[in-house]
């Protein structure tokens, strides 16, 4: 008898607990060339902003040990083009859409959420709060991302919640002292789930040219190299929260995904690994099913938070 893979993330029903990490899977169509993306629990989009953005100047990528640094700068087509050109494909496929949004003020986030619900462009909203905090960014030191300031996390979360009835997931940065602080702030402000982790800040220098490898100087580190950091934060957050956690950070195989589920994640996202293996997310779905069968676990929910101490 086939094990049950379905799970519910803050009101979003998923036939399996595997989605993709925002920005690593485009808008789904790119990867549908390699496998039927409708087989995923959901597709999470690249961050969508109010207007289209050109993003940072190249070079934007550099490879690092067991990972990569990126400084895309949130290039994206903007909400209008997303709704007219990107969402229809995913609706056609019938796969749940987690629309990741990015703005520069609570109002912008609220407006994006409102329009996405109105135009049926999303089944859930993932608010990427790893955006510069307009206020603090001015100060040379200290917190510069909304995600690094619990009160700001609460403010932005409330704004999005008040603008939509869709489930709202809040995506957090790992560049904090204690992930539970922004996570609990999001929960108290009404978030339906938190997604973590976003990339770790990092950089690389070319010793020949003496220049940073990225035109933006610093970038976000992702890939298997950050998995231990991500897993620890997912465990910390899941242990402290009542709302679900979507875990991500270096997930390459089903075995990695199972570690996140055991740590307490209700769902997981495959990110950079899709670059190496375009059907990586599908392989994770299949691998989890095999694991459950081999271990005679009838329901995926038995795994969630089942780490033994």
């Amino acid at each position, binding site marked *: 008898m086939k094990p049950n893979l379905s799970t519910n993330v803050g009101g979003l029903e998923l036939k399996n607990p595997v989605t993709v990490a925002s920005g690593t899977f485009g808008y789904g169509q790119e990867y549908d060339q*390699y496998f039927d993306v409708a087989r995923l629990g959901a597709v999470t989009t690249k961050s969508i902003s109010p207007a*289209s953005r050109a993003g940072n100047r190249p070079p934007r990528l550099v*490879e690092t040990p067991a990972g990569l640094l990126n400084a895309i700068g949130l290039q994206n087509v903007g909400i209008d083009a997303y709704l007219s050109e990107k969402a229809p494909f995913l609706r056609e496929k019938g796969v749940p859409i987690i629309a990741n949004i990015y703005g520069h003020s609570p109002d912008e986030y609220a407006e994006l959420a409102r329009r996405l619900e109105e135009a049926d462009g999303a089944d859930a909203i993932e608010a990427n709060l790893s955006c510069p905090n307009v206020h603090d960014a001015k100060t040379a030191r200290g917190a510069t991302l909304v995600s690094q300031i619990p009160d700001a996390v609460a403010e932005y979360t409330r704004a999005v919640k008040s603008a939509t009835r869709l489930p709202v997931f809040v995506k957090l940065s790992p560049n904090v002292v204690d992930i539970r602080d922004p996570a609990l702030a999001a929960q108290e402000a009404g978030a339906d789930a938190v997604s973590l982790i976003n990339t770790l800040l990092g950089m690389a220098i070319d010793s020949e040219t003496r220049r940073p*490898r990225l035109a933006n100087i610093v970038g976000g580190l992702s890939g298997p190299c950050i998995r231990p950091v991500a897993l620890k934060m997912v465990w910390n957050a899941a242990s402290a929260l009542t709302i679900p956690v979507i875990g991500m950070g270096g997930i390459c195989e089903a075995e990695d995904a199972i570690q996140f589920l055991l740590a307490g994640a209700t769902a997981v996202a495959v990110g950079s690994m899709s670059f190496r293996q375009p059907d990586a997310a599908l392989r994770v779905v299949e691998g989890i099913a095999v694991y459950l069968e081999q271990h005679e676990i009838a329901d995926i929910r038995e795994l969630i938070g089942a780490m033994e101490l």
Partner: protein
Amino acid sequence: MPHVVDCEILANERVAPEHYRMRVRAPKIAAAARPGQFGMFLVSRGLYPFLRRPMSFERIAGDGVSILYKVEGEGTRLLSQFAQGQSISVQGPLGNGFSVDPSFARHIIVAGGIGVAPFPGLVDALVSAGIVPEVIIAARTRDLILCTEDFRRQGCKLYIATDDGSAGEKAFACDVLERVKPDAETRVYVCGPMVMMRTTSDVAVAAGADCQVSLEAQMACGDGACLGCVVESKRKQEGEKMVRVCVDGPVFDTRTIDWDAHNLAYDR
């Protein structure tokens, strides 16, 4: 439509001090591939290096493709160690490839160093369209002048130049192109280091010729999803300014590229 296929390696031989040619059996990919397109090759079984390596198809023949590559770092070093009979995962064909248009009176290929890699396949395609292109091959030194036999066999007029004069004339690709006088009826195809592509396409554009350049950029996904491989275009609209080398290219009409915006300081 690209595929990800485990391909049998038919050959992987050293053809120059740091250069190798690999042939793989890949019917699906070969059937779909056009000259100028590329594949992403999975060079490591462990997770290091993590990303695939982009390689232009040198030739597309029957049920296989070949690549011609230079050992740059760890990834290409690993690639060079694959043995005949082993299997390698290839994602492709990717990118737009060169357009073959007989309406141009004259066709001139300009290759810089390993930038010659995509041209044997292009010449095959041009010749079967009844076009015999002229070929300019420039490189640092004699050993790095590759594929001359392939081009001669196809009847191409060859111009060879090296920085040190160890083969052909001591000159840069752009100088040779200038001398052979492209005109408004000419299409020029360029691939090589960024700085060489720029100087060479400047010459072509000044002569009023059409000029297709095959660009390079660091890549992660190869299929348009990550937005990592962009170069700046001349398009004005915010959302369209950046073009992706992997899907909008790698071949571009040089006139659409904002060369002034490209910071050569980042290229080694």
